[in-house]
């Protein structure tokens, strides 16, 4: 993994343990650098809306964020390698690697316990691993679900694209592009109606901007002042097309203006910036001040779906994707983004703030890797589904008649 050049590692290691104040200064520097390097984040910064909330986090919380990033990373790397090396492996994935800081930063600002009536609720996409892990979903059960096991998170009925776990407020992945965000506003409506303090976060790719539901989502959320946050993960591509094919402006966050709600651009590679923006939005939503649109600029290291072009043990997919017939991502673009890796950025920041040292960081990474290898190994040993169970879970009770035999 490459190191960030703008944070001099060695010397930072020698600083005294970071206080809130020094941490804040670093955060500001970090944020500014991120903005200057790759973003037109005027909406976020010019109006000074974003507080440096990460300064208030305890060391434990900061380490948890780093750990989460590593756990997402290694959950998926373990899965990629399985796909590449075990021909019989049945799981598939829309890999989230590269985008870990987004889900991690957002979930760090949320309440993730208390079940449906108390936890903050997260709606995910067809690219759900990161959102789920950051929200606290059990990785063993996820791994089992990805391989359609009867003891998987959703008993094998869902598979990767449909994982859900309401006990931690993870409302589920969705294979469709469009419906998720409007459904999420419905949860926010119910929350407002029952005077709960919960908030609802909806993740959506840059691809969701062009859907008709994008307008419905923001318009109704704004009109009804719903406790709702739309996190656009703009990874520049929807499937095999650059986002300029479907978005007429550079920053999707600008669409917020029509609805009179905040539209914020953040560096999606920097977990602390993401946290700052999410915290502001969550506070606003909880206070009854309505929705926020956050656009996190980010990038995925793998192709749209599965592992084409990837090699076992290597990070990122540089090879050919047979599905990308008309348009594919330039290797240089991918390498440029990997130079601003969310793992490195968070790791270097925490080292520089004296939250942990390199050894501890490595230890966390190793533990994450081990946990995930074990999770997938556990999954491999889980029972397969019973065919007849396909007739269940149509309605709450009972099962429907078989019709395939005539």
């Amino acid at each position, binding site marked *: 993994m490459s190191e960030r050049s703008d944070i001099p590692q060695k010397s930072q290691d020698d600083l005294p343990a970071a206080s809130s104040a020094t941490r804040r200064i670093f955060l500001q520097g970090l944020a500014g650098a991120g903005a200057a390097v790759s973003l037109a984040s005027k909406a976020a910064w010019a109006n000074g809306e974003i507080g440096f909330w990460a300064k208030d986090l305890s060391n434990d919380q900061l380490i948890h964020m780093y750990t989460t990033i590593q756990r997402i990373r290694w959950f998926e790397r373990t899965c990629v390698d399985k796909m590449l090396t075990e021909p019989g492996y049945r799981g598939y994935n829309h890999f989230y690697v590269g985008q870990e800081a987004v889900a991690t930063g957002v979930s760090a600002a949320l309440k993730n316990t208390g079940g449906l009536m108390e936890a903050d609720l997260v709606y995910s996409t067809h690219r759900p691993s990161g959102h789920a892990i950051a929200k606290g979903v059990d990785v063993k059960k996820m791994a089992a679900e990805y391989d359609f096991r009867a003891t998987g998170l*959703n008993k094998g009925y869902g598979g990767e694209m449909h994982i859900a776990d309401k006990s931690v407020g993870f409302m*589920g992945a969705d294979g469709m592009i469009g419906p998720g965000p409007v459904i999420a506003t419905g949860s926010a409506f119910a929350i407002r109606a029952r005077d709960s303090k919960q908030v609802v976060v909806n993740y959506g790719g840059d691809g969701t901007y062009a859907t008709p539901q994008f307008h419905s989502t923001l318009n*109704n959320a704004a009109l009804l002042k719903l406790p709702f946050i739309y996190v656009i993960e703009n990874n520049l591509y929807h499937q095999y097309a650059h986002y300029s094919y479907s978005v007429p402006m550079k920053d999707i966050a600008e669409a917020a203006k029509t609805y009179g709600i905040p539209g914020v651009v953040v560096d999606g590679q920097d977990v602390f910036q993401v946290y700052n923006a999410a915290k502001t939005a969550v506070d606003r939503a909880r206070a009854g001040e309505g929705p926020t649109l956050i656009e996190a600029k980010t990038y995925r290291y793998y192709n749209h779906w599965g592992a084409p072009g990837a090699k076992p043990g290597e990070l990122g997919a540089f090879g050919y994707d047979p599905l990308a017939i008309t348009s594919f991502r330039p290797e240089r673009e991918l390498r440029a983004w990997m130079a601003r890796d969310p793992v490195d950025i968070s790791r270097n920041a925490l080292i520089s703030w004296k939250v942990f040292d390199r050894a501890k960081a490595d230890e966390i990474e190793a533990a994450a890797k081990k946990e995930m290898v074990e999770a997938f190994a556990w999954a491999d040993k889980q029972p397969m589904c019973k065919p007849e169970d396909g007739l269940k879970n149509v309605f709450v009770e009972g099962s429907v008649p078989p019709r395939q035999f005539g």
Partner: protein
Amino acid sequence: MARKSFMYAALEAVQSEMQKDKNMIWVFELTPPVASTPGRPVINLEREFGRKRVVNTGIDEYWMAACVLGAGLAGSKAATYIPYQGSMMPFELIQNEVGKLRMKTGGDAEMPVVFVIEMTGQTPGFGVQHSCYEEDTYYAHIPGVRTVIPSNPTDAKGLMHASLRSRDPVVYLYAAGLRDLIEDVPDEPFETPLDKAAIRSEGSDITIVGSGAGMPEVLKATEELKKAGMKVETIDLRSLKPMDTETLVKSVQKTKRLLAVDQSYYTLGPAAEVIARVAENVDGARYKRIAFPDAAPPASPEMFLWMRPNAGHIVGAAKKLVG
């Protein structure tokens, strides 16, 4: 017990469930949840429960349905009334999300939700989109959603209670053509089962099956045929999904004659399913369908009224089938 209109009976059930469950929401557009009926207090859900729970929205029926689904997933009971003009706007959401979420999540998703989908009053003159009455098939083909279609105020109330208490999502098809029906309906809450057809008349010569807004003409025809001496067994489907095969099959095993009546288009109307289910299970019976032709309803009343199935058509077909 008091005389109540179709809408009043339905809203009475909603009101009672909303009083019991402080979290329940109701989403509407242009059809306010207001009803009155002689001698009973006016029901106005918006006034009674306030705009945080009962909301009037813009013209976006897809969002209305999505809002209800999202509320249900978040653990709140929820319902929406989609006016007939927008009855197909939320279709994809109900088909692709509501109908699949339980299967998709292996049972994790909570969906205590009801989608009241209005079907047109088939008013002559309104034409293709406002007189169509075609939604039954679309919704009834969806697995994972219960689809009911009351044909009188009593069932309107009983099915509404049952729908709102069910943890399964329910599409409650509301035939606007029945708005004017008034009959005695119990005041206290009661449930009508979500999966049982109703036998409206018992007989052994012929089975006539209808549903929803088709029922008044079916019942009129039944009376006429009975007067003419025919022993008519008349069935009101009441639930389209699941369809009550047992009641249908038992009846035709007895009568060996099945006349299935749709207000909707012929091809793949509910009557097709009625006949197919019976034909798979009963040997040697004879079958006939009556339906709106496979044509969007033209505006001209002359054309439209000629095309719409009525009691006369049913009587004629029944006589041919039995004779």
